[in-house]
């Protein structure tokens, strides 16, 4: 939750500060302003996509039925490991709630660095509230946290009071009458497939279906059908492979210098001598 910038946690407040700086940059006007604007837009999209990605990651791995034999008998990790993660999780909450004072502390670091001298954090931090200059916007971390807690607490109490008479029974998930099998659950690729298709211009997803028939003449009764859904790595395709090709071509060119003929070697020396003489004594 913290990393996909959801409110009570620290992710939200750091993203909030990013947004404020981008917005303050946006009204600089001109092309610079536009770039700030676009980057703010992209930040919004990325944080939302991050949320989608973590829903997928958390949902597919932790929730619903176990998908493999090993997962069936998975045991919880030892206390040491848990406490390690636990402390950090607690920290995200603590940093989230006291975001104001902590960013105040962090602001002091930028004073020391000469390179950052010009950009000291203008935001004003009074008692845990983050506020940008000319009070363009402000948010109070503890207020948000306590508000959420209060609201949920009240709701839980009221609902419990109203419905304490109802019975709660546990039963099988309803799945249009079929019995639930492992295959029913959605997989990570399935989950992300729709986003990949939307951004297909960029990510270039590949889809390859192969059908096997009972007998080849009659193409009506497919015995087995498989769809291979893949996605080649965009960076490798557009950046690293051309780079390798260019450098190998260059080294092929460089190798031609050494082609084994003594006369040519002496010619190199003679040519450099003449060129240098002509250049220097102009």
């Amino acid at each position, binding site marked *: *939750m913290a990393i*996909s910038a*959801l*409110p009570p946690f620290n992710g*939200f407040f750091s993203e*909030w500060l990013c*947004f404020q700086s981008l*917005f303050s940059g*946006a009204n600089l*006007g001109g092309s610079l302003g536009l770039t700030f*604007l*676009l980057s*703010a*837009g992209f930040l*919004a*999209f990325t944080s*939302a*996509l991050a*949320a*989608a990605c973590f*829903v997928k990651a958390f949902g597919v791995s*932790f*929730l*619903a039925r176990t998908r493999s034999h090993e997962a069936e008998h998975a045991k919880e990790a030892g206390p040491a490991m848990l406490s390690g993660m636990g402390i950090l999780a607690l920290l995200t909450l603590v940093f989230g709630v006291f975001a104001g004072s902590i960013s105040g502390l962090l602001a002091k670091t930028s004073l020391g660095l000469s390179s950052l001298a010009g950009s000291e954090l203008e935001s004003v931090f009074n008692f845990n509230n983050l506020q940008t200059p*000319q009070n*363009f*916007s*402000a*948010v*109070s971390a503890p207020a*948000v946290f306590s*508000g*959420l807690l209060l*609201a*949920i*607490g009240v*709701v*839980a109490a009221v*609902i419990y009071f*109203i*419905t304490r*008479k*109802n*019975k*709660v*029974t*546990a*039963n099988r*998930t*309803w*799945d249009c009458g079929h019995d*639930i099998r492992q295959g*029913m*659950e*959605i997989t990570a690729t399935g*989950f992300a*497939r*729709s*986003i990949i298709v*939307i951004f297909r211009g960029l990510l270039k997803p590949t889809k390859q279906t192969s059908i096997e028939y009972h007998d080849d003449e009659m193409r009506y009764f497919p015995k087995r059908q498989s769809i291979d859904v893949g996605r080649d790595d965009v960076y490798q395709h557009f950046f690293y492979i051309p780079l390798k090709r260019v450098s190998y071509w260059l080294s092929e060119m460089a190798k031609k210098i050494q082609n084994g003929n003594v006369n040519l070697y002496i010619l190199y020396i003679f040519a450099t001598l003449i060129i240098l003489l002509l250049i220097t004594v102009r």
Partner: protein
Amino acid sequence: MTLAFIWTIQIILVLGLSPLLIGIIKKIKARLQSRQGINLLQPYRDLWKLLHKDEVISTDASWIFKFSPYLIFGLTIFLAINLPVFARLNFPYVGDFLLVAYVLALGTFFLALAGLDIGSAFGGFGSSREMTLASLAEGGLIFSFLVLAIAAKSTNIYAIAGFVSQASVFYLLPIILAAISFVMCLLAENSRYPFDNPSTHLELTMVHEAMILEYSGKRLALIEWAAYNKLFIFAALAAGLFLPFGLSFGAGIFGMLIYLAIFSLKILFIGVLVAVLESTLAKFRFFRLPDLLFTAFILNILAIVLIISL
């Protein structure tokens, strides 16, 4: 002290009126299809009935499935505080629009997780579609607020409302553009017509419904009510930010009463607008929705450029 008092009014207002708004929308849609339609109080009865029915929870579900309805409903209450119903008071530390957008995202986050939790195919692809739509819509949402924030030089919702009410005519075009994109986001976030059919249970089309398929009893009531509140909050935001007239009347009780009347009129107008939109537009194919949402985002960018160049 008046702050707490106003907040309680707002919360009561939101919780109370939202089912009514849904009733009105359904009624109008039915009328347009020359059907009789349900009577306006039907949503209240549904909620009351659900609250008192027994509940069946799947064996595979974890604590997330059990806990998320409470959280989602609680969020809607928290959001209720931010509504620009009474523009005069501006409590500076809560009403930030980024906070609103991200609290909504928190809601969808848990709803999607709950959908995944039950492990049925419907919940899976429902939450996948919901997350794709939410991620695309969020950009448009934040930027429609941003248009006004830049114009009003502050992101506090009350300040924005105050500014828009006496903005000069030059600001008219950017605000209209922002309004259009805001309506698109409204339809997307609340899974209304062109994005998703709220009442269907057809696997091919449903997004929001798929996730809450497994819920029953009081949890289903909570989630339904939360959905109604969400729609009401969006409508209130639209009313407060984009329909500025009659915001600041006199101070006292009398001023507030008049203003409440105007406010409910505005909400009614938005309800009608949504209903009309729903019955005129056909549902888009899923992979054409991103183009719609990208247009919303570009409209906002256009508006902001206009404002900056002013």
